[in-house]
């Protein structure tokens, strides 16, 4: 099942690798996340110029037609370099939703700007008490003339402080936990009566809680069919998981090679750490974890690209298995680096933290294990 990448895909990968190697090393990233804004518009522009923002979209939308495999390639390299810019939020989540269910007018209005790197988006689906369920929504949207009026709060919206546009889930009918009645809306980040409380995330990004206090949204900004948002978000989640798994695999591969290298160089008791059998076996298990995670991530991406019917179940399975593998690798990479693994100065801890937050985004390994089990 090993993917034979096409020449185009290999070119995409090598162009990202070259760019990140030259422009986005660990020191550069450190500078970016410590700025007031916390991300780099300049690098974002470069990503767009490299074609990354257009890579996955269909050619008839003006994209490069790379689909999920292009996303997988980009996310894996971003994972290797801990890129913080909101590619996942803007291209994978919002772009994917727009391509999936937007009206022709909406596509025309929004996709070109995303592909050109002109607009940043964020997806607000979670709420304070929702945990990981899309139907657990208390934010409401009621009709008022030609508008919808949105009220409620949304939680853990990664990238919201950077965004121009938000996609917000809200109830147009039904009660909390009803599968029907959740709708998606495109909301200007700077709308009146929309308030953000920003905070830093453990992986060096910025996120916000949104308070929507009667925010007026034109009816034309309804994304997809009214009341059918849960199914749309579930399809979005499968793509999101495919991308996050690829990012995790990228991060794991760096941790494994860093740990291996350190174990050969670091001497204790007169010999290299790597000569201790207990540590050898640990690193073998880290190697196995990465191989399995890589395979499962490719399998998921191929299945989703082929629109296999069990995509959603497989996505949950991968999120659980890859998440556990990544956590194991991350924890052991810190452990084997000893005190250095704990220090903010070394990159290892930062990969650990990115993996920790991947394991929260769109549901933790246990949540998805249970979801997988229920569909068996």
């Amino acid at each position, binding site marked *: 099942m090993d993917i034979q990448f096409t020449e185009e895909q290999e070119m995409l990968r090598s162009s990202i690798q070259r760019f990140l190697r030259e422009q986005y090393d660990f020191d550069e990233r450190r500078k970016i996340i410590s700025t007031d804004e916390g991300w780099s518009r300049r690098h974002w522009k470069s990503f767009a110029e490299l074609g990354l923002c257009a890579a996955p979209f269909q050619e008839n939308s003006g994209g490069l037609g790379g689909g999920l495999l292009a996303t997988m390639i980009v996310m894996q390299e971003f994972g290797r370099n801990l890129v913080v810019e909101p590619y996942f939020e803007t291209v994978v989540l919002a772009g994917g939703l727009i391509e999936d269910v937007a009206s022709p007018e909406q596509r025309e209005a929004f996709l070109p700007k995303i592909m050109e790197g002109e607009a940043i988006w964020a997806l607000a689906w979670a709420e304070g008490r929702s945990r990981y369920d899309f139907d657990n929504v208390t934010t409401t949207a009621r009709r008022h003339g030609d508008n919808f009026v949105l009220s409620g709060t949304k939680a853990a919206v990664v990238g919201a402080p950077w965004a121009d546009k938000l996609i917000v889930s809200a109830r147009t009918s039904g009660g909390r936990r009803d599968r029907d009645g959740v709708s998606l809306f495109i909301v200007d980040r700077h709308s009146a009566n929309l308030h953000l409380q920003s*905070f830093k995330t*453990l992986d060096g990004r910025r996120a916000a809680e949104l308070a929507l206090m009667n925010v007026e949204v034109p009816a034309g900004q309804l994304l997809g069919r009214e009341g059918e948002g849960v199914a749309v978000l579930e399809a979005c989640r499968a793509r999101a998981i495919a991308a996050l798994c690829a990012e995790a695999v990228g991060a794991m591969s760096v941790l494994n090679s860093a740990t291996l290298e350190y174990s050969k160089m670091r001497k204790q008791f007169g010999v290299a750490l790597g000569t201790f059998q207990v540590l050898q076996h640990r690193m073998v298990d880290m190697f196995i974890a990465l191989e399995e995670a890589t395979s499962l991530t490719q399998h998921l991406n191929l299945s989703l690209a082929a629109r296999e019917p069990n995509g959603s179940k497989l996505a949950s399975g991968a999120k659980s298995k890859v998440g556990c593998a990544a956590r194991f690798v991350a924890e052991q990479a810190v452990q084997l680096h000893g005190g250095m693994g704990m220090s*903010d100065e070394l990159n290892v801890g930062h990969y650990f933290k990115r993996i920790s937050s991947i394991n929260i985004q769109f549901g933790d390994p246990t949540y998805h294990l249970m979801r997988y089990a229920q569909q068996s």
Partner: protein
Amino acid sequence: MELNLSSEDAAFRDEVRAFIAENYPQEMRVPNPETDLTKEQSLLWHRILHKKGWIAPLWPKEYGGPGWSVTQRFIFEQETSRAGTLPPLAFSVTMVGPVIYTFGNEAQKRKFLPRILSGEDWWCQGYSEPGSGSDLASVRTKAVRDGDHYIVNGHKTWTTLAQHADWIFCLVRTDPSAKPQAGISFLLIDMKSPGVTVRPIITIDGSHEVNDVFLENVRVPTENLIGEENRGWTYAKFLLGNERTSMAGIGRSTRYLQRLKRIVRTEISEDDPAFGEFVKDIARVELDVLALEATELRIVAQMSRGIDPGPAASLFKIRGTEIFQRITELTHQAIGNHGLAIREHPAGANRFMPGPDYGHTATEKYLNARKLSIYGGSNEIQRNIIAKAVLGL
């Protein structure tokens, strides 16, 4: 679980409980006492315990200890940790104090012990170096005799709370030609000495607990040498033994486990399939705690009959740290999406943190707890100790 307490011991337990309830400073009840308190604030409880005569349970009465039995010491440890009080600085009270009264001379005892008890001197530990982590005997910091002084040069690292310290106890190499363990001495160094520089190390949770300490031509009076020159390894091992027995952390784990249960009940509804998984995971950890606590009680009973647990104490370090790491991991999972947020350090007021208060330190605790299986002799080293010294492998 409790020991079968005699009526005197039960009365003692009640006395300790009441004393904590009445005297523990409210000012010290902050979200994360290990990182959020100033030096002065973290000494408040120390001073209260000192006034009461309870600051150093381990110490013999003649040096200022309370003269408790093994059981009383255990009760005190259990009650203070269950109540979530900040333990007195271990480097001062648990580590260097016993080394000084066991191996130090009369002048050293007179000079240092009272100041440790009162909290006047804050000590830090100069063991680890960039090249000596688990392999402590490979220390390279050099001390060369120059009349009635040593000239010390070297680089100590991972030095906890050195930014507050008045003194550092150091392992230094005094005989470079001897076998690694044989050429080490135990030296007390005034942090105000010219040539001592402290540089902060920020850890992955964003806090400043540890430091690099650079020693450049630091002149240390020979009267600050503990015991005999080149015998430092013996004293260092004695100290590490004290460190490990206190690492089971039953009280702390029990407290965090109760808190985790409350969080899970609040955050996750019972019809959520994840709820059942949390219940099982928590039960597993609870049994781990129970087994370790039962082991601790068994060892305490043996100790009160005069049997030294010796290297088996390493099991407390291994299991105690693994259990606490698991609890912090589950707590971080329990708060769901809110676990994406992390507090900024230094912890200032008015910075927005999402979600309920009980989750605000979950992320930093999870990250910070990764150190537990690394420091004080990594858990791999502890397993080697048991393999070698207990199992004879």
